[in-house]
């Protein structure tokens, strides 16, 4: 009887303890699920690149909303090559962040050497390729799209631009309609297909990533067939450094296009031909070259431009990414502005900048001479918005950007300055009215290298493998011996 009572008591207390234990564990699980649902994350890394930029998160949200599966397959870098660890780790971290931020985007990191079959299935032949797929469409990103190198020797730097590249790929896949940007040709303009430093093939490729197509517009050839005009599908027109005068008839065609709410990008050079249409918009391109005491060393003709407040430059300014210009022409909007035209400066020199007219640069040095040079700060790029009250636009709002330097959009400098590609792409996004996509095309994270010689490495090895453990052993021996002596 007593035995039964003891057993009963044990059973009661035991069951009670078990139930309480389960309840506590269940409560912890529930609280965890709640905390997981309402997570708070703080990025303490120096470059703030460990979590995705708001723009990328928004884009992932849009992809999830469309409910069309998107896969991102990243292939490993070649083992044994310099920076392969950095490259793989950056890509893996980025994929993990995408997984975390999206329910629908599937990511996969593939070891190129071990999973050749996957590479073959996707038709991938290069290490480090990233394939972004959505339904039947895909965008391939190569090493050069994902990493940027600069400097030489000990100053050599490598930066990861993968988030921006994949972000652009998403834009390209999300956009159902491919918008066409026409580049005017026939007057010695920059060649949209050109691969030399003066060509715009790199710009065309960057626009292609945005699902914008850069096509040639030749009014002379069109004239042979029917009445020439800017095609109906034109989302914007580029007039890049015409060498000779654009005939009045063609200027009128561009004006007629603007009147319908069109967008034009003008790029001019110092001493070059200035389209007369710019004068009608109140834009002046004074004689001279823009210089600044603040320059991109060692180039005396490359001032470091400052960003002025505008949607095109906002993120670039926030993230302090420099746009590099070379031998830029000054660009000024009429003061006071023409009625119905809102002008904003995009790039400007510092207070120490000036318009060089004396030719001192030819001698290899530049110095402000108040008698002949123009005082700064000087604008190098401006943006105009034209309303119907301007008398030039009949419907909607027309947009015009005038660049005082063509190098910003040519192969020569497009990928040289940290902000050049972003500036060029953002300019087109703004011209085309894609404000929602205005962002920095790249939030780079840099590899933090150690400057270790083989001699230093020997010292480090000795320090970490011998001294530390040895000290612990000596301490232990001292304690043991003192206790033994008691």
């Amino acid at each position, binding site marked *: 009887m007593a035995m039964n009572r003891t057993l009963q008591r044990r059973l009661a207390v035991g069951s009670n303890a078990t139930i309480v234990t389960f309840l506590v564990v269940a409560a912890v699980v529930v*609280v965890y699920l709640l905390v997981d649902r309402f*997570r708070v994350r703080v990025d303490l890394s120096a470059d703030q690149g460990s979590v995705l930029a708001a723009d990328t998160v928004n884009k992932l949200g849009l992809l999830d909303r469309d409910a069309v599966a998107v896969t991102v397959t990243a292939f490993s870098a070649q083992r044994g090559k310099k920076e392969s660890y950095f490259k793989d780790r950056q890509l893996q971290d980025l994929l993990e962040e995408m997984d975390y931020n999206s329910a629908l985007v599937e990511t996969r990191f593939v070891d190129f050497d071990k999973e050749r079959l996957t590479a073959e299935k996707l038709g991938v032949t290069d290490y480090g390729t990233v394939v972004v797929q959505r339904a039947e469409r895909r965008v391939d990103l190569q090493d050069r799209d994902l990493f940027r190198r600069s400097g030489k020797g000990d100053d050599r730097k490598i930066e990861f631009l993968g988030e921006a590249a994949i972000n652009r790929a998403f834009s390209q896949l999300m956009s159902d309609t491919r918008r066409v940007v026409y580049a005017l040709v026939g007057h010695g303009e920059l060649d949209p297909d050109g691969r030399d430093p003066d060509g715009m093939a790199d710009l065309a490729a960057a626009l292609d990533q945005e699902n914008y197509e850069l096509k040639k517009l030749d009014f002379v050839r069109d004239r042979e067939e029917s009445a020439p005009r800017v095609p109906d599908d034109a989302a914007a027109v580029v007039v890049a450094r015409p060498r000779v005068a654009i005939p009045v008839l063609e200027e009128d065609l561009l004006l007629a296009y603007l009147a319908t709410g069109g967008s034009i990008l003008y790029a001019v050079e110092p001493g070059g031909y200035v389209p007369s249409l710019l004068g009608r918009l109140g834009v002046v391109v004074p004689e001279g070259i823009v210089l600044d005491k603040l320059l991109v060393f060692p180039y005396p003709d490359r001032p470091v431009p400052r960003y002025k407040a505008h949607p095109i430059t906002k993120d670039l300014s926030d993230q302090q990414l420099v746009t590099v210009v070379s031998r830029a022409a000054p660009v000024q909007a009429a003061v006071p502005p023409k009625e119905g035209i809102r002008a904003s400066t995009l790039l400007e020199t510092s207070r120490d900048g000036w318009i060089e007219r004396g030719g001192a640069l030819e001698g290899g040095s530049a110095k402000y001479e108040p008698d002949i040079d123009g005082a700064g700060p000087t604008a190098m790029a401006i943006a105009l918005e034209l309303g119907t009250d301007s008398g030039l636009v009949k419907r909607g709002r027309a947009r015009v950007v005038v660049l005082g330097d063509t190098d910003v959009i040519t192969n020569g400098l497009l990928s040289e300055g940290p902000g050049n590609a972003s500036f060029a792409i953002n300019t087109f996004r703004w011209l085309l009215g894609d404000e929602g996509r205005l962002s920095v095309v790249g939030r780079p994270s840099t590899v933090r290298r*150690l400057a270790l010689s083989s001699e230093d490495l020997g010292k480090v090895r000795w320090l*970490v493998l011998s001294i530390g453990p040895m000290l612990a052993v000596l301490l*232990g021996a001292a304690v043991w011996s003192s206790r033994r002596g008691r």
Partner: protein
Amino acid sequence: MRDVWTLWKKELRIYFVSPLAYVFLSAFLFLAGLFFYLGVTLTGEASLRVLLGNLAITQLFVLPMLTMRHFAEERRQGTLELLMTAPVSLGAIVVGKWLASLTLCLLMFLGTLVFPAVLAYYGDPDWGVMFTSYLGLVCVASAFCAAGLFASSLTDDQVAAGLIGIVLLLPFWLVGRAEALLPEEWADVVRPLSVLVHLDSFNRGVLDSADLFYFLAFTGVFLFLTFRSVESRRWR
């Protein structure tokens, strides 16, 4: 609180008057040094990511060995009954022993602070990432010490307690590795259990409330289980 303090001192004294702490410290520092050196030579980066990632796994095997003695040895020597009848709450006993193990871990980590100093001398490390990585390491140590303590409360054989501790912790490491082999729906279920998944954000410089809570809950649950396990001796 005073009881916890008294027990913490007693347990630490036991650690440091025996050669055990020094053997662990020496072995741990050698392994850490090896991981650090390999990380530096392989990556050439001013980063502790390779070291800290490997140290977390090392703790999975080291910490159960460090905590195996606590309750198993008391039971074997018959001093547990004495301790339980002393005017000290059972909670204070459990927390005191856990804190002593954690303190020893912190001392071991203190020995690795020479590595950030080396990186700062030869490069420009990211101190934010360094801080969160060490915080992650402390979180793992806290969780594994609690699990090791629970294993120690289950048996009176120290070696068995150590092995139970490792077997108990292994799944929390393996699920992170096996995730890719599981069907997607299963992977989603087991993923939150993985220590590696929750440690990852720390190693990238990100403080995530869910990851912090995971380690807090892991520690809390195993301390609670230890409490229950030791308490069960009163009614079994």
